[in-house]
């Protein structure tokens, strides 16, 4: 838990909604997401693919280019409202104050330029360093993210690196201007297990050295347990549970979070995290009016036809189950 | 949609050519009318007048009267507008039928090459390579020069030198690789897909798999190519006819009419300009239609294009 918890948050989302109008109808990709990230804090956003977690992060940086997208709510970065401020105003923030790491390192880098060129490009966009200075800084960064022989490798092309090494390059690039906030979109999903651990390790270390805040998007509760200080669980574009990592992992309130954690073994099934949640994420076009998870929930009740309220407090959730019902259910199951 | 409308309009107009010639213009556009004259604004004007410069004759210019010599006459006194409609029939006919033949052989060859691989693929691919290595017009010209003088006599097939079938076959064959190569590539990737592998595993005959499983997946690609091929083929036909090695008299196409009008270019430019406009409008409509068809069959392309 961060010590600066009560200082002004680096990033504060209030009721962020993103919807796309398509021929088939309106898709609410993000529906009322609120969260706040303190200085030096790691905030995990977890959910299945299609739950809107990536869309939310892209929208806050203005990276959603779809003309049919409509974004509402508020995004405050360092106390400034940045939502809808336009490309010109966002350019110094993107890459300068907020760094971004992407899911697939194989395609995230422009194939025709050396990695050094790409890092230098970003440094020179945001600072007054000369080419030589920026190159020296690029070599330093590559060394810092653990690329051996950085002096030579700075002139290599992306395809000459392995996936894990490329992700290190992407991280070095994201860190190049000492951003206050790092957004990592499934940074380890495309990598093998040992590389995953190394990359998470690297990110934790960089956080400690630079005291930057991190928002990490993942579908893997393991990553959350390893990295995050706070967690927001999303389902079908809506936040359904949020709170300090320990609270959410140890005392999850929402049946969906139980499924994610594999904490609720069902009769005749072995727990395998996500795989054990019956059914798939429904089409984004027919999200129910009430609780979005109701169609897949094993404990669905009459109340679930209405949308559950977002509870108050540090550990919040959106579910009609009462605390006593929850305790009873969990005791029965375990 | 607009493209389809324009195209239908042009096709309809050309189909009505005989009606126009016999009922409105009362001229046979295939018979010379050197001595003819028409009544215009109460005066009698002869269709061909002695040229003001040098030798020869200057045909009557556009009267802008829909019923007679709307666009004037050509050097043989024939009604240009009526010939334009008839020419459009041949141009469209050659364009469509050569596109059909081209797409048919390209699909068949591409499917067979992609599906069977090995020696078959090698032979078909080399065939495509050879056709591909020649500039299209040179290949078409070579074929035309040889075939138009002697006609085609292979086994029991005898085609007269002046037949419309020759330009159709020539144009169809030079463009086969343009459609055949993408089809072959597509079938090669399809072949690795589960449902084809499953069909092969279930012991279905190759012919049945090609027909039932491969063809339905190839068809959209070919359909997307089709309008473009018609436009391509019409342009090629007109170029060959312009060089007088395409459609042969007495048949007329837009290309031959442009050629007819060349000598009159500075005195009666409409003879050459009108069929050119016909070609441009038809091909533009076909290309627009092609874009529309592509978007309809490949919504991803549309989405990406619009994003």
């Amino acid at each position, binding site marked *: 838990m961060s010590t600066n918890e009560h200082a002004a948050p680096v990033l504060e989302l209030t009721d962020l909604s993103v919807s796309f109008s398509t021929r088939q109808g309106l898709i609410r990709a993000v529906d009322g997401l609120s969260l706040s990230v303190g200085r030096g804090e790691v905030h995990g956003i977890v959910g299945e693919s299609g739950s809107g977690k990536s869309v939310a992060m892209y929208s806050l940086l203005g990276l959603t280019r779809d003309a049919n997208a409509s974004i509402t709510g508020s995004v405050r970065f360092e106390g400034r409202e940045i939502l809808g401020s336009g490309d010109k105003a966002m350019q110094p923030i993107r890459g300068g104050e907020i760094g971004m790491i992407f899911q697939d390192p194989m395609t995230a880098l422009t194939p*025709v330029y050396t990695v050094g060129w790409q890092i230098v490009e970003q440094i020179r966009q945001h600072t007054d360093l000369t080419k030589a200075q920026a190159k020296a800084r690029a070599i330093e960064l590559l060394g810092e993210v653990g690329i051996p022989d950085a002096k030579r490798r700075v002139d290599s092309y992306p395809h000459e690196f392995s996936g894990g090494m490329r992700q290190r390059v992407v991280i070095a690039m994201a860190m190049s201007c000492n951003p206050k906030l790092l957004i990592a979109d499934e940074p380890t999903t495309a990598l093998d297990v040992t590389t995953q651990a190394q990359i998470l390790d690297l990110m934790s270390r960089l956080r400690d050295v630079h005291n930057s805040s991190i928002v990490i998007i993942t579908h893997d509760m393991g990553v959350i347990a390893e990295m995050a200080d706070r967690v927001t669980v999303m389902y079908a574009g809506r936040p359904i549970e949020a709170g300090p990592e320990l609270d959410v992992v140890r005392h999850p309130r929402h049946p969906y979070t139980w499924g994610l954690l594999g904490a609720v073994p069902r009769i005749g099934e072995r727990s395998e995290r996500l795989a054990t949640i019956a059914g798939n994420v429904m089409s984004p076009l027919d999200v129910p009016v009430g609780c979005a998870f109701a169609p897949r929930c094993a404990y669905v009740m009459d109340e679930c036809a209405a949308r559950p309220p977002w509870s108050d407090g540090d550990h919040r959730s959106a579910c009609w189950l009462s605390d006593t019902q929850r305790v009873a259910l969990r005791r029965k199951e375990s | 949609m607009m493209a389809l409308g324009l195209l239908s309009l042009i096709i309809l107009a050309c189909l009505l050519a005989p009606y126009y010639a016999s009922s409105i213009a009362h001229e046979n556009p295939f018979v010379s009318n050197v001595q003819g004259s028409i009544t215009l604004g109460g005066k009698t004007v002869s269709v061909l007048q002695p040229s003001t410069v040098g030798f020869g004759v200057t045909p009557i210019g556009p009267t802008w009267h829909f019923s007679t010599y709307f666009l004037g006459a050509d050097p043989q006194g024939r009604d240009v507008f009526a010939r334009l409609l008839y020419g459009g029939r041949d141009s469209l006919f050659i364009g469509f039928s050569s596109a059909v033949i081209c797409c048919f052989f390209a699909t068949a060859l591409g499917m067979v090459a992609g599906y069977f691989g090995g020696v078959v693929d090698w032979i078909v691919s080399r065939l495509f390579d050879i056709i591909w290595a020649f500039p299209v017009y040179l290949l078409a010209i070579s074929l035309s020069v040889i075939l138009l003088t002697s006609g085609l006599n292979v086994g029991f097939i005898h085609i007269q030198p002046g037949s419309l079938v020759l330009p159709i076959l020539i144009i169809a064959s030079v463009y086969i690789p343009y459609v055949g190569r993408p089809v072959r590539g597509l079938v090669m990737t399809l072949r690795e897909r589960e449902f084809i592998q499953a069909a092969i595993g279930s012991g279905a005959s190759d012919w049945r798999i090609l027909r039932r499983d491969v063809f339905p997946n190839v068809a959209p690609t070919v359909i997307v190519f089709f309008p473009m091929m018609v436009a391509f083929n019409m342009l090629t036909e007109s170029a060959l006819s312009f060089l007088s090695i395409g459609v042969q008299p007495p048949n007329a196409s837009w290309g031959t009419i*442009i050629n007819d009008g060349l000598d009159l270019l500075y005195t009666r430019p409409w003879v050459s300009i009108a069929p050119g406009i016909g070609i441009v409008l038809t*091909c533009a409509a076909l290309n627009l239609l092609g874009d529309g068809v592509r978007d309809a069959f490949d919504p991803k392309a549309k989405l990406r294009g619009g994003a």
Partner: protein
Amino acid sequence: MLLFIVRRLISAFLVMFSISVVVFLIFFATPGVNPAARIAGRSASPEVLAHVAAEFGLNRPLPIRYGLMMWHLLFQQDLTSYVNIGVKVIPQITGAAPITLSLIVGAAVLWLLAGVAGGLVAAANRGKWIDPLIMFGGIAAVSIPAYWLGEVVNLVTQNKFHSLFSWLPAPGYVSITQSPWQWALHLIFPWITLATLYAGVYARVLRAELVNALNEDYVRTARAKGLSERRILVKHALRCSLVAIVSLFGLDFGSLVGGAALLTEVVFGLNGIGMLTYNSLLNLDLPVIMGCVMYGAFFIVLASAVVDVLYAFLDPRVRSVH
């Protein structure tokens, strides 16, 4: 890199060799046809036939015949037309080549400029009015028959509005060594005519490539780096789309130099390679056809080799594979 170029040139040479063999076989080894009669043209006398037979060693084995043929074509350079008696083939081709090259190089500059500009502007303004406008212009350009456009241009510049174009000389060709200004003046409208079609094609292809590139992950990365849209478009998307344009350009340039510019040459009265090939085909002048085909094939193969080398310069991934 040097190794790559050398290897590519060797393979280009091998392709040239096989094309020359195929051309040779078509003209000299088609069963049932007397090649001497073909070369000598229509109604040739027995003496001429005998001379042709001796010159090309027609009673000797095939490999020797091939050697003799290449000897006459490439080294001796004394292959002679029997239709226009005594006119040598090679000088005809070398005389026509600069005209064709002048026409195509100038047109290529124009269509690359117009095509790249059109594609860039259209892709940068997706969803605005200018994008469909440019794309419609592209469709119109690819739908115009080049020879007809040439005729219309002639009509406008030489006749209807001649007073406006009084500075324009009559159609024809003036060598660049004679007067660069007259050279350009004579060629300006042929250039525009030929460039129109290709500019349309290139604008359409480039726009499609750019739109694809702009949806790639690396463009998202570039945006997240805080780069300006202009820089993303030019430095990242365009740079990656160039590979497709370069390969297209190589093929088009090769086939144009190889004779595909024929229609433009005919309309503007330029005695280039296309015109030469066309005339020799109409006259069935086989030695000239052979020379032109070999020449055309040479340029097409050379162009594709140059494209591959450029490819390796443009795309580092290709470089490391070889």
